[in-house]
């Protein structure tokens, strides 16, 4: 938790800065709108956290989001009855993609960077091969409600986000979470303590795939079918996780901080927009902030080796 503290301070600072420029931001509707907008990235970051903390990468989530939305649109094709079965199918598909990523990485020993890069290519190619180049069909109203509608004043996506966040925090506190972090910190020690390293890592990839499926449901619901809905999300999710102080290479960082990292990224985008920093400078500012955040993290927590070196 100590490591996680800075990101919450930064996030709070950004939120205050936004509120100063736009006081309306603190009103419940506006704030909920912000949370709703951030929800897909936060969920992706939560999923990516599990993969990163176990010492791996998942570059395939962006194209998985696109694939999920395109598949849903084609299968639902506007039909209300098809909605729920297709939602279930999307979840299953996310899990299966994660399972394949995990199995190839752990059993075939392909570096996860390459496994998931290959999966990125395969998914983005295969889904459009199937639909003939561009999305077909349409999402049903029921489907769209999850990303668009709300329960009373609270958007569904915010509720889903809360549920996902609670589940993610629970998972890290559960036996699974601890063994996963152990595998990321020192996989040999973990294996010699009875941790099924390959299995927990594979489950981490499946969680990441699941989070991509949920993010796809929210994004597809929010804005409808699009061929580029997931574009660039993998880098944003990894950035968010790292911003939250989670160390690439595994073993360190908390899922709450990773999600805070995603909120911070969204808050940063909002703030840049408010200050009228145009699209052009946005990436530059983002780049500097990411490097600075990680560099500061490295300075605060030097990679000191254990004390008992004699």
């Amino acid at each position, binding site marked *: 938790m100590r490591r996680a503290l800075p990101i919450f301070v930064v996030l709070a600072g950004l939120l205050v800065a936004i509120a100063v420029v736009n006081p309306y931001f603190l009103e419940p509707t506006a704030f909920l709108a912000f949370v709703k907008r951030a929800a897909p990235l936060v969920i992706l970051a939560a999923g990516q956290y599990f993969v990163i903390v176990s010492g791996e990468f998942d570059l395939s989530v962006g194209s998985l989001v696109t694939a999920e939305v395109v598949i849903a649109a084609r299968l639902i094709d506007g039909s209300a009855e098809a909605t729920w079965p297709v939602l279930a199918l999307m979840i299953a598909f996310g899990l299966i993609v994660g399972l394949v990523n995990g199995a190839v990485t752990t059993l075939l020993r392909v570096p996860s960077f390459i496994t998931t890069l290959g999966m990125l290519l395969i998914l983005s190619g295969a889904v459009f091969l199937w639909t003939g180049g561009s999305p077909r069909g349409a999402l049903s109203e029921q489907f769209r409600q999850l990303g668009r509608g709300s329960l009373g004043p609270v958007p569904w996506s915010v509720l889903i986000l809360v549920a996902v966040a609670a589940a993610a925090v629970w998972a890290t506190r559960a036996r699974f979470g601890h063994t996963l*972090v*152990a595998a990321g*910190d020192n996989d040999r*020690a973990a294996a010699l303590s009875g941790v099924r390293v390959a299995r927990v890592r594979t489950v981490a990839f499946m969680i990441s795939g699941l989070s991509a499926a949920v993010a796809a449901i929210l994004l597809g619901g929010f804005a409808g079918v699009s061929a580029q809905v997931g574009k660039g999300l993998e880098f944003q999710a990894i950035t968010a996780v790292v911003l939250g102080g989670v160390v690439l290479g595994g073993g360190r960082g908390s899922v709450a901080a990773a999600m805070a990292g995603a909120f911070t990224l969204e808050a940063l985008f909002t703030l840049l927009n408010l200050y009228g920093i145009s699209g052009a400078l946005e990436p530059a500012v983002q780049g500097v902030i990411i490097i600075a955040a990680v560099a500061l993290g490295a300075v605060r927590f030097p990679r000191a080796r*254990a004390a008992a070196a*004699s």
Partner: protein
Amino acid sequence: MLRMTGIGKSFLGVRVLGGVDLEVSAGEVHAVVGENGAGKSTLMKILAGVHAPDEGTIEIDGRSVTFGHPIEAQRAGVAIIYQELTLLPERTVAENVFLGREPVRRGLVDRAAMESATDELLKSLGEESFGPRDLVRRLSVARQQVVEIAKALSLNARIVVMDEPTAPLADHEVELLYTLVRRLTARGIAVLYVSHRLREIFDLADRITVLKDGARVTTAEASSLDTAGLVRLMVGRELDSYYPPRAAGPPGEVILSVRGGGNARLHDIDLDLRAGEIVGVAGLQGSGRTELAKALFGAEPFTSGEMTPRRPRSVREGIAAGIGLVTEDRKAEGLLPNQRVRDNALLVARATGAPRTGVERLLERVRLSPPRPAQEVRLLSGGNQQKVVLAKWMTVAPRVLLFDEPTRGVDVGAKAAIHDLMRELARDGMAVLMISSELPELIGMSDRIVVLRDGRLVGELPAGSTEEAVMRLAAAS
């Protein structure tokens, strides 16, 4: 030629060396001895420029030197052969020997010169089984060690530090090393020889410096000492009072039994472990000690033979059968360095789904002091780290606990605590197997000692046997 004065060094607040003096003259073999954790390796690393000393001075030929980087030590004529191999497995022998100082001709690396020089070095070491162009990855550990020695020789060093150089070498290679060391000294090179093997020390050394708990005890002419005297200087106390008393009654029932166990490294292992008994395993490095523990545990399983309980084929089967392993290399195989004490202690329970245990009670049981469950283990001392590893196994209450070098890198106080704990576990009905390269510890702790040589059990000795008896079995050829 070399004079180190008042050298002190602390790591994260733990003082591992204080006020150590060392003086070495040209052409002598100067042995540095001491128990594990006495500070030998740290002292050598300071000499090699790996660590900077917190205090003290180093003089070579009367001139004061400071080494900010290993290369500066190299340039000053200090070469070091580390305990752990420091070779690049994907590079060739020649590339490794000349790493960092490849010969250059017209701006390009002169491979021919490099390879012929390496070839000569290897020949001078009597090494014919591989050449300068072989990949290090393809060599056995013993041959990789030869490459290390060749590398040090190629430095034209004036001071050569050898940190446990013979550990992985076979006997004929040890003889060759002797020849080499003598050849070096004949050229006026000083050899600093760090070893546990007292016989080697008396064979080779002109003078001996004894370190204990980070301080120098004495420096003496080798001829003025005998084995027993040297051991006394190293441990500084009578052996018998040092170890907890053995169990009074006869050992209990057989908990683990192997007949004809074998795999790639082990052959025909017959072994019984009984409740309440501590069985020591002796053997030189490379004799298969660690492999035996890992085979019993299921990490590198036996592929043949009978075992009761059922032969574990994986770590999880081993744990399920009530077997635990305290690994030799804590950092690499035992601990999660960035996790809290608490998470380390609960790791096995969590991994295997054992019922929850109160961490505080566990830490009390292993006498972790201070017992701070929220501390990250990388910040703990070696002794406390080892206690955390022990706590990890207490959670699943194993019936057999295998200790591989349980007190390596552990300070004296913690060492005694660990010994007490081992004895206590045995008294509570556990079967304990202990591997140690410290013979006094092995003899002091064990109810009986089995000796491994070349992957076979070659004998068994009763409690209280002499070091000589153990060594005779372990080293006989």
